[in-house]
């Protein structure tokens, strides 16, 4: 009888192969693959529940698409990623389909008693902020610069998060005294967090863009239908209900 360690060594490659094939299965099946920014999770699944979704930070998804991931649709929280894919020949011309704004989230009840974003100047707080490569992190840094508050990233203990979902989790769990996220995230987690409004004049314009991915075997018809669905009346109504802003109809 083979000893268990040797057996494990022998079956490991087979298991790995099975795992790869298993992961590849959704692409081989006919379901549309939609790669979308984390902040679109709730609303996209309401607009259309049939695609296979991959929600993550837009920059991570961009990298995956560039490396040949089996995406059919790409939706980012910042035009930068979608435009980069377009310029690299990886997707069709992106369209803006929604907008958003930043808010400062605090755990329900606001235990740190933060009255406004300027309250972060006192220092010594735990902040959850998107890392600089993630759209929410980039928007946050722009906002803080416009408010003259860049220093709060030095005077407080800052955790750099890889997606907006992680920022919300940190705040909702109380691991952070405050965190910068989108208005829509504040709405989704409103039972666990409170949102503090940020000065309008300093808000960077948060624009979401969609595009159909160009690759061999991409479901272009399915991608076009999904994009049309998001931009049609029902899609817009659901986006609006979720708290997103809408660009003028084109």
């Amino acid at each position, binding site marked *: 009888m083979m000893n268990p360690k040797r057996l494990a060594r022998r079956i490991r490659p087979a298991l790995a192969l099975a795992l790869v094939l298993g992961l590849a299965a959704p692409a081989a099946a006919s379901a549309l693959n939609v790669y979308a920014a984390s902040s679109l999770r709730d609303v996209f699944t309401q607009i259309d529940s049939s695609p296979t979704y991959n929600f993550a930070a837009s920059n991570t998804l961009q990298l995956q698409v560039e490396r040949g991931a089996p995406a059919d649709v790409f939706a980012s929280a910042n035009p930068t990623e979608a435009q980069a894919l377009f310029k690299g020949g990886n997707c069709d011309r992106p369209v803006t389909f929604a907008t958003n*704004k930043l808010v400062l989230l605090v755990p329900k009840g606001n235990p740190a008693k933060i009255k406004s974003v300027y309250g972060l100047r006192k220092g010594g707080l735990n902040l959850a902020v998107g890392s600089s490569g993630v759209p929410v992190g980039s928007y946050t840094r722009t906002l803080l610069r416009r408010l003259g508050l860049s220093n709060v990233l030095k005077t407080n203990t800052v955790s750099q998060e890889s997606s907006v979902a992680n920022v919300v989790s940190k705040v909702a769990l109380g691991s952070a005294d405050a965190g910068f996220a989108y208005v829509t995230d504040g709405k989704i987690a409103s039972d666990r967090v409170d949102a503090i409004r940020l*000065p309008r004049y300093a808000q960077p314009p948060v624009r979401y863009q969609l595009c159909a991915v160009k690759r061999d075997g991409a479901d272009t018809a399915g991608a076009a239908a999904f994009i049309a669905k998001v931009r049609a009346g029902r899609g817009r109504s659901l986006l609006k209900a979720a708290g997103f802003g809408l660009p003028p109809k084109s």
Partner: protein
Amino acid sequence: MIEVDRGQFLRLGAGGLVAVATAGAVAAPAAAQIPAPTPQEDDIAFLSFAGLAERTSRDFYRAAVKQKATGLTAVERRHLDRVASAKRAHILRLDAALGADAPATGDFVTVLPKNAVKTKARIIALGEQLETLLVRVYLNGVGFAVDPATRLLLGRFLAYDAQQIAWLRGAAGHASPAGLFSPIDLEPAADQLDAFLSTPDFPD
């Protein structure tokens, strides 16, 4: 400016003209020596605020000039028209200094209070309010911006807008302000400016 009359012109001849042109060229750098701002650290905050507050102010003056039967004289309307043009020039300078941070068309829309430009008295009151806000923020920037060229730019706007306050007060028959303006922190200033801004394509 160098003035040359006809007699001098003939006496100077071509060589003289070269000398005049050279003198002009030497004089020119004095005006051109104003360095371009290279905002450091949070200098962007003053420029961003100013960029939007100057837009609000420009839109307000344009609306005031367009409004009929306000009680403003033709001279006063011409003055406000010139101020609106000057504000446009300020915005261009601010946008150049802000670079990628400059607001894009459509990001913000100015919202003026109802009947804000209906009468001369209301125009002067709101004009003074907006200019005072700008002057106080510029004072803060002049005191605390890191980049000297950014401070200089803010100081030049400060001088212009302070003049405009004096004009507005004069037009209302009031004396120029007797006391000193105090700098205002961006936190309360933001609340004041936000009241005039709308972001139509973005959730509120």
